[in-house]
């Protein structure tokens, strides 16, 4: 009995010794403190002031008004941010009031084209029907052309950009809102990057660009254009593209900062109830733009 106990005791002692040897541990620790600054700012303001637009809205039935001009910038050195502008009527009657952001694009001599980069829903070229938007040329009587559309396609398997498709521009009138629609037939100019158009290619990005897309803006092409309601049709009904990119700063001299300028537009229906409304529009971050990012509405 005692011999058995002795063996058991020795076995336990051996196990304890083995276990303790297995727990030989080395460790190192480093602590770093970092200030994190905001990437996307509204009107140059920091958190928490910069997160929303508050407008007191008072209009008559059938009228269209807009709030003050605002701008979004992105301090991120290498990545575009994706945001949306989401409005809520916090006081007053919500019936008969449509709220849409209107984006301002500026063509400035010796700079690259100004673009609004909207995020398309998941779409393949085969299903694409059209892309449309409303535009108003505010200044630039020498160059009365609508913005054109650039669509970048990518291979759905490899993620490689395949080609860039560019539309032509329409002749437009000064100071009048017009709806511009581009169908497949209107997207004629294809710049191959790693191939030509394949029916299953995915949409990578849709940009609405003013002035001649061939290069920097030349004298005579200056214009200021407002754009709203970017919409895509692809197989099913129209989808309003409400997410857009706030580009990071470019280092190239010719490429503008591409600050996103916008106003909130308030359209009163003919049967809208008179009275004042308070509308708050939040700048909602939706993510970081990466190649192949698509939006599922």
């Amino acid at each position, binding site marked *: 009995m005692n011999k058995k106990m002795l063996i058991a005791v020795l076995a336990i*002692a051996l196990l*304890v010794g083995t276990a303790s040897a*297995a727990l030989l541990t080395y460790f190192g620790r480093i602590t770093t403190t*970092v200030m994190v600054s905001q990437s996307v700012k509204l009107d140059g303001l920091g958190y928490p002031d910069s997160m929303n637009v508050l407008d007191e809205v008072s209009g008559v039935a059938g009228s269209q008004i807009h709030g003050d001009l605002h701008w979004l910038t992105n301090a*991120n050195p290498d990545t575009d941010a994706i945001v949306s502008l989401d409005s809520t009527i916090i006081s007053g009657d919500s019936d008969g009031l449509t709220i849409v952001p209107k984006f301002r694009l500026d063509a400035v001599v010796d700079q690259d084209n100004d673009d609004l980069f909207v995020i398309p829903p998941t779409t393949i070229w085969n299903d694409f029907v059209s892309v449309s938007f409303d535009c108003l040329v505010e200044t630039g009587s020498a160059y009365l052309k609508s913005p054109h559309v650039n669509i970048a396609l990518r291979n759905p398997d490899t993620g490689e950009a395949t080609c860039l498709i560019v539309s032509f521009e329409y002749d437009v009138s000064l100071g009048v809102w017009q709806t511009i629609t581009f169908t497949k037939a209107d997207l004629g100019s294809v710049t191959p990057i790693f191939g030509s158009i394949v029916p299953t290619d995915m949409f990578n990005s849709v940009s609405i660009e003013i002035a001649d897309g061939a290069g920097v803006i030349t004298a005579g092409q200056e214009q200021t254009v407002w754009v709203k309601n970017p919409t895509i049709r692809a197989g099913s009904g129209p989808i309003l593209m409400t997410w857009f990119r706030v580009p990071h700063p470019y280092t190239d001299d010719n490429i503008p900062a591409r600050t996103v300028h916008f106003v909130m537009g308030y359209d009163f229906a003919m049967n809208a109830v008179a009275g004042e409304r308070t509308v708050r529009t939040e700048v909602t971050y939706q993510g*970081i733009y990466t190649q192949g990012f698509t939006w599922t509405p």
Partner: protein
Amino acid sequence: MHRRQLFTFALVLLLALTICQVSAWSTHRKPKHLPGFHLVKKLPKTMVAGSTYEMTVRFRNPKRETFRMDVTLEVTEEQFDMGSDEFFVTGTLYAWETPPPKHRHHTRHQEYCDDLTFEEVNVGVFNSTGLVRGKTHNHLTLRISSVPNLIPDTYTFTLTVTLQY
């Protein structure tokens, strides 16, 4: 030897072993400092939300054995409460048997390279654990990303690397 003597001897032996093991246990339980552990590339003093930044530490493997490496990065915020999924962490371990050339980029010429997957095990606490082939010289690079709407504030990053044999 009589049974009683045998029993007494066994008890003494057990007591001695226990004392030795407790001592050995406490010695081994107390972690030793990782040889040569220091920062090679530090995070910038200021970071922009939504960007990715790298930090690299180096250390020497004290034993020529495969080890279990536990890497924990704890992120804390000074003024506000952190939420989960605000940061994302990936990492790579580069290793050499002989000291790596000083003026060469550490991602080249490594004899061993292992990508590390981090999981947010608690709010702001990222962990990666795995067995690592024993090489003497090791560089651990972490890539830290944040969401673009991260609240501007002062953040503290505490990196702990533990090797177990």
